[in-house]
């Protein structure tokens, strides 16, 4: 009883604290100084139509590197804690039409994922979203076929290779004295084209491959048994 009263009192205090902020809230009619800088810089300096991508990959590239590291650590933790038991061969085999249809669908889902991360600088989405979509394609395969096995060494090779290349692209920026993880290390190209915006599509594709293989690894360790 006393617990509930205390929780209610705490919530009431929170409401009283937040109330002045909400009651003074007014919608901005113009952009703030910082967002103006970002939008102009994204169009003029980076030639990337999607401002969100240019903020994530270039202006806040170090944060993205940290995010990718967190995801990597999560994958390592899941793999370490949930060590796989030996898979007994189940006698039941998935129906043929289910297998065929799902492999057809999974290919299309993965192509959608690749489209999303290669066009990260042109349309909404990017490496993280595309990677998750690729992992969901693998999830469909795992759910439809009981005896499906995913080659772990290929997954690990893709994951570590893309991670090393991602950091390597950042270090190239340092060597050319442009800045760590700056995307101007490659020619900018024409505004709105697929091969434009410097290294942004390259970096986002690497992130997409890394996230996709990591999440596939997590799903496989959790569900494949």
């Amino acid at each position, binding site marked *: 009883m006393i617990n509930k009263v205390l929780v209610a009192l705490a919530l009431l205090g929170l409401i009283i604290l937040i109330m002045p902020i909400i009651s003074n809230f007014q919608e901005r009619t113009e952009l703030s100084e910082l967002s103006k800088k970002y939008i102009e810089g994204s169009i003029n300096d980076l030639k990337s139509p999607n401002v969100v991508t240019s903020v994530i990959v270039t202006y806040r590239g170090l944060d993205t590197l940290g995010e990718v590291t967190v995801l990597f650590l999560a994958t390592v933790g899941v793999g370490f804690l949930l060590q796989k038991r030996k898979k007994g061969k189940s006698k039941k085999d998935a129906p043929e039409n289910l297998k065929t249809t799902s492999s057809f669908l999974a290919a299309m889902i993965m192509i959608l994922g690749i489209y*999303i991360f290669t066009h990260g600088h042109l349309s909404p989405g990017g490496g*993280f979203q595309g990677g998750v979509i690729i992992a969901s394609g693998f999830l469909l395969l795992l759910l439809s076929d009981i005896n499906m096995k995913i080659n772990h060494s290929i997954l690990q090779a893709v994951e570590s290779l893309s991670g090393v290349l991602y950091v390597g692209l950042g270090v190239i920026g340092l060597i050319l004295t442009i800045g760590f993880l700056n995307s101007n290390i490659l020619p900018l190209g024409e505004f709105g084209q697929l091969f434009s915006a410097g290294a942004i599509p390259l970096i986002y594709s690497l992130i997409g491959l890394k996230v996709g293989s990591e999440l596939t690894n997590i799903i496989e360790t*959790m569900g494949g*048994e």
Partner: protein
Amino acid sequence: MSTIIIIILGIIMLSAAFVTIFSKSLLAAIITSGVISLLASIVFLILGSPDVAMTEASIGSALTTVIFLFALKKLRKEKNNDK
């Protein structure tokens, strides 16, 4: 118009959150928490941020729900082994 849609979605999300907290069945709790993420992604889309909406829809409602379901399956298997 969009304000009305957002308010309706918010009410559904709140009730789904209550179901998540108070329901006795773990399966229902997992599914309703996935529903919250899905509706949240629609709200993000209406507010004009397709990037965040895509992230929320793919990670929040698809992947997290599936991983929770896998964990639930594992828990049930171990419960049966104990008996």
